[in-house]
């Protein structure tokens, strides 16, 4: 503990000034400075055997504060070890940094808008490049990573099958179960088949499959590309006259365009099967009547709209993953952020697209195909 004695124009400090004792000392010195009338002040350090960096900071701060008030402070009679420490840790002239000038609301809004415009432009470039190279790549195989289409189809598509199947089955199952409880009351249990098959084909199949893909493939695409950017692998590709979009993204684009619609169709079927299980066990609907009801309820259009949605969702997922991957900033933390952003954005955009497509298909329902 440091003791403070004072006379009219001098303060005598006694005891070690270490990090623990600085706190109380600050308020004491401050109080003293406030009431001090003279333009000079001496602080006697002869009673201080030891001081650490916190103590030095305190003394320097006191000196500068006093100077600001027009009081000139002198430290006197410091022991040799204290003088050495004062010299070693001196913070004189460093000053505390002024708080950064606050940015006005309009500046921030303008900056955000400008940044968003630039980001949108980058996204459009990526979309254009991806679609262009994907189209060109159908006829010319140069610049695309060899063997990668099969590899990615397995990783993105085939390996997703178990979880897509499980989720589809459960969704069909739950939809049937929940709707059965209501429909039963009207003796309309058989319409569970209609309800589930139309929901699975038009909405649940595409959406659930897309969300699984967004979580699995969206994140893996983003993290793979982000890691490649961080380790300069994309720079290396560019230095070998290879376009990273063409080399890395296009195989994934092909793979997801092929596998996601396939898995969506499978999820539709499995979902309907899940409902069939409920129908058979809980609603006493035989397999054949259930099947007939499904076939009657569905029109070609339901499945086509589901497939169109799944292709649009597939493209959204691969491009969003690539977009956040390429824009990564920083090291490992940046890769994590890019991955999270990709998944969140993919899910959001998929649902947004689902709404828009739903409206388009609804208002175009007179159009026969």
């Amino acid at each position, binding site marked *: 503990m440091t003791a403070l004695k004072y006379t009219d124009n001098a303060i005598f400090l006694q005891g070690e000034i270490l990090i623990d004792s600085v706190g109380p000392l600050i308020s004491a010195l401050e109080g003293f400075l406030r009431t001090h009338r003279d333009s000079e002040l001496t602080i006697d350090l002869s009673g201080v055997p030891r001081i650490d960096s916190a103590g030095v900071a305190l003394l320097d701060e006191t000196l500068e504060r006093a100077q600001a008030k027009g009081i000139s402070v002198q430290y006197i009679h410091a022991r040799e070890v204290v003088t050495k420490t004062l010299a070693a840790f001196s913070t004189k002239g460093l000053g505390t940094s002024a708080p950064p000038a606050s940015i006005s609301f309009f500046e921030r809004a303008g900056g955000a808008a400008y940044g968003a415009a630039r980001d949108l432009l980058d996204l459009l470039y990526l979309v254009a490049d991806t679609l262009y190279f994907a189209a060109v790549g159908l006829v010319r195989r140069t610049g695309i990573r*060899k063997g990668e289409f099969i590899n990615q189809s397995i990783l993105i598509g085939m390996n997703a099958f178990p979880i897509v199947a499980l989720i589809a089955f459960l969704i069909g199952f739950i939809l049937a179960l929940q709707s059965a409880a209501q429909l039963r009351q009207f003796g309309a249990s058989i319409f569970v088949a209609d309800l589930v098959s139309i929901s699975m084909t038009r909405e649940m199949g595409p959406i659930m499959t897309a969300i699984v893909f967004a979580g699995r493939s969206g994140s893996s695409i983003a993290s793979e590309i982000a890691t490649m950017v961080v*380790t*300069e*692998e994309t*720079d*290396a590709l560019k*230095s*070998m*006259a290879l376009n990273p979009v063409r080399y890395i993204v296009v195989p994934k684009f092909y793979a997801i365009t092929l596998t996601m619609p396939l898995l969506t169709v499978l999820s539709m079927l499995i979902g309907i099967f899940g409902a069939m299980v409920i129908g058979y066990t809980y609603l006493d609907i035989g397999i054949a009547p259930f099947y007939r009801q499904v076939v009657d309820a569905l029109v070609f259009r339901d499945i086509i709209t589901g497939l169109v949605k799944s292709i649009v969702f597939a493209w959204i997922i691969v491009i969003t993953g690539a977009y956040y991957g390429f824009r990564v900033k920083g090291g490992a933390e940046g890769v994590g952020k890019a991955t999270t952003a990709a998944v969140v954005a993919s899910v959001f955009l998929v649902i947004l697209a689902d709404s828009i497509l739903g409206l388009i298909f609804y208002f175009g329902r007179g159009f026969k195909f």
Partner: protein
Amino acid sequence: MTTHEQTSPVVEVRNLTSGYDDKQILYDVSMTAPYHQITAILGSSGCGKTTLLKHLIRLYRPWSGSIELFGNEIITMDEPEFNAQLLKVGVLFQNGALLNSITVAENVAIPLSQHTQLPKNIINRLVKMKLRLVNLENAADLLPSELSGGMRKRAALARAIALDPPLLFCDEPSAGLDPAKAESLDRLILSLRSELGITVVVVSHAVPSILRIADRVVFMDDGRILFTGTLHEARTAELQAVDEFFAKGISQE
């Protein structure tokens, strides 16, 4: 030698000024690198030398100035033409920048399989040849993650010279290597110059390495060129920043 080689440098930078967003990094940088010599771009960390190198392969676009490779201005070149130029340039990145999901041999084969019509067996032979040049014959089927830092750099060097480029850029080749490995990598670079006639531009702040390999030096400080000339001229020029750089570098050996 072609007539261009006899009269002009392979790399010529004139008044390059650049940066990103609001921050300027290069201030009116001009330099040349002559054919068949090893030119070292030196300076302390943060002086802009890696940024300059990345401009030379058009990974960054400058605010103003001109860059010529093989006598051709590259900043305004369209992409197919520039890609053709890139095939004459090999780049060794600081951490190798090998593709981590494929083997060493597959990495070295990328330029060969993408840019030539050579059959597979010839490509395999070429890959083994380049790996032998860098003493990595036995690592052909390993993944980059299974290699040490020094081996990764050598594998990346093998990839950089896959197409026999007349020009090689190296970004901090000895960074992260112990003195023995750094020396053997330097000897490799020297042999590329003497046996294959490759022109090398090295970015480095490792003085022992520079003293071993550089013919010419370009000394940078804070984004500006302080000195260009031969290594001997640099050491006798009595420029304080240059002398300090060499003195500190040697004393750390």
